């Protein structure tokens, strides 16, 4: 059994990076079902999908910082920010007042039982992916202050 495990492990490194969004149902703040790769499919639009949680300090810093620049970015690029909350039932009720209190203009989706997070095998948040025409074109794993500049540079290339 151990050998099979390592064989599979080896094979995993030979494959290429995941390129499409898995089909997972999320809910929005009004409780409606949303599927990312069906409901966010505007042609050539850049979707910045950021995984966060109310208890994750760096995630909130990232979304706060993005909020300061997003209007400027939108003048140059056709983009939309989707903030996917991975909060479980413990903290999920804090999502809505927090988002309002912060004045975030993002589309907020809830991944309450972490189905999407699991399908994308995300271990740590913050974790941001950029999707265009259904393809994952860029992954930013973690967040450090000031990384907006490199994200913008990347977005311009896509």
């Amino acid at each position: 059994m151990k050998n099979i495990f390592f064989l599979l492990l080896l094979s995993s490194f030979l494959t290429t990076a995941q390129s499409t969004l898995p089909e997972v149902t999320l809910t929005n703040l009004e409780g409606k079902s949303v599927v990312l790769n069906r409901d966010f499919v505007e042609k050539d639009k850049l979707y910045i999908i950021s995984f966060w949680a109310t208890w994750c300090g760096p995630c909130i810093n990232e979304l706060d910082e993005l909020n300061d620049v997003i209007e400027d970015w939108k003048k140059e690029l056709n983009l939309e920010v989707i903030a996917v909350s991975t909060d479980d039932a413990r903290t999920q009720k804090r999502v809505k007042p927090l988002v309002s209190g912060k004045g975030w203009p993002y589309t907020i989706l809830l991944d309450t039982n972490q189905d999407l997070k699991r399908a994308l095998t995300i271990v740590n948040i913050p974790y941001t992916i950029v999707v265009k025409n259904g393809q994952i074109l860029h992954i930013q794993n973690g967040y450090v202050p000031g990384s907006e500049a490199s994200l913008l540079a990347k977005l311009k290339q896509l």
Partner: protein
Amino acid sequence: MKNNSFFGLLCIALVWCSFWTQAQNNTTSSGVLSGGFETNTQWYLNDKGLKDEFNNPTAQPEEPLRSNSYLFLNYNYKKWTFGIQGEAYEQNALLNMNPKFNGTNVATYFVQYKGDQLEATAGYFYEQFGSGLLFRSWEDRALGINNALRGGRVILKPVSHFTLKMVYGQQRTGFDVTDAQIFGGDFEWGLSKVFKWETTDLSLGGSYVGRYEKTDIVNPNFDALTNAYAGRISLTHQSFYLSGEYNYKSPDAVVQAPGQIDNRLIKPGSAILLNMGYSKKGFGIDGTFRRLENMGFFSERAAKGNVFNDRIMNFIPSLTKQHHYNLANIYVYQAQPNVLLAGSDFVKAGEIGGQIDMFYDFKKGTALGGKYGTKVAMNFSNYNALSGTFFIFNPQDYDTDFLGFGQRMFSDFNFEITKKWTNKWFTQVSYIKQYYNRQYIEDAAGEVNTHIVAGEAIYKFDKGQSIRVMGEHMWADYDRKNWAAATVEFNFNSKFSMYVYDLYNYGNDLSHYRNHYYNIGGAFRNKATRLGINYGRQRGGLVCVGGVCRFVPESSGLTLTFNTSF
């Protein structure tokens, strides 16, 4: 076990074939293979400087090199998905994990069909009904929780505003499943769609969960089948929202300590959860009330209260703020849904309490907002044991008050102010005041009152470098008393960071127990891959994720974490 391995091999074969199909014919029409790998490896070391309460130094365990590793593969072809997860706990699992996690094996696998109106899954699956108070199966690797069901699930969406889920299965425990059978259903109905309301959202939901577990007890006074029901409603009107749910669990034998099924105390369980709030841009307020009575629910009765959260069927998080400061995570509340009749001054049948959150943004350009705005968050939570009439001696019994606040178990008042000064400077300060009843929460002695003051500052240099500094102090009047902590983190660029931190229990009454818990480490991130390394000391106590906690012993050593997805 054999059964599991057989299905596992079958799934490996399926995924393997798919992989080769893809490799040989590299077009999207042959499907997509994706997955992820994660390993947490720890090398435990002897540490003479790290003493416990009784002046014993920290010794490495047998098998000092341990790791938890997970490999997950997913193959998607049109409407079909096949998945498999292998897990390896080699030279044993990390300290204080469930001992059933040992060795290397296939852990979970599934095949799923997903159409527009029908989704069907066979194999292992994760699911949550409503808020999870009756049923949640999920995975939390840090806590060693994976209570997936092995069986089948069907989700029907005949119209866009109606969803029906049906599940049947046996629950995972270690690399095996329990004998008990679990089955249930849940519906969610969006009524506003039916009434064609534009500005108001109204939805109803309901659940049923059955657990069938035969008992060895002769002449049981309870049924093998325990039934649980829940109803919920959610209403949103413009900036205002409201939701409520009621959960009921049919009478069943009370288990006060793991393994002790009491055939003479047969009680039902219940949970009420109410939430309401108001939010508009720049302001949000939210209040939650919860009452729990005898609501612990496990796939095997005797498992109730086990320290590994093994065979847990529902999710009862502590509804308090999850702090990100180190010292604020020493006295962490855990929900108290269970019955314990230990003495005339120590009785529990559940908890009652709630929390309030408030968020406010002083706008840019105002006196308090300054150039970049100022953000304020406030939170208060309080939980008491349920009061009532309790009979401690045989026959034991109790009768709770509906709105009865008994002994206080926990409270937490806190606020934080977040301020961006310039494009480069960012600060946050927090104040936290906690009350923690060790007897009711940990079954230890005493009560602790704490005051915590913490601050964080981030400065951005040019060329993508930044530094983060955090200072914390906790005044505590009991147990290990005062602590101080400091953290410095330096980010060289978006891929590479290093940090050092120390928690110092300088106020401990016992001089040998005034430990430093220092850690130094770094992380390298590239695309979907992260590599982390840490050297230092782990504070013994509860490690909590999402209000569910795992006890870890004090330890010292080197940790390597690696994860990637593809």
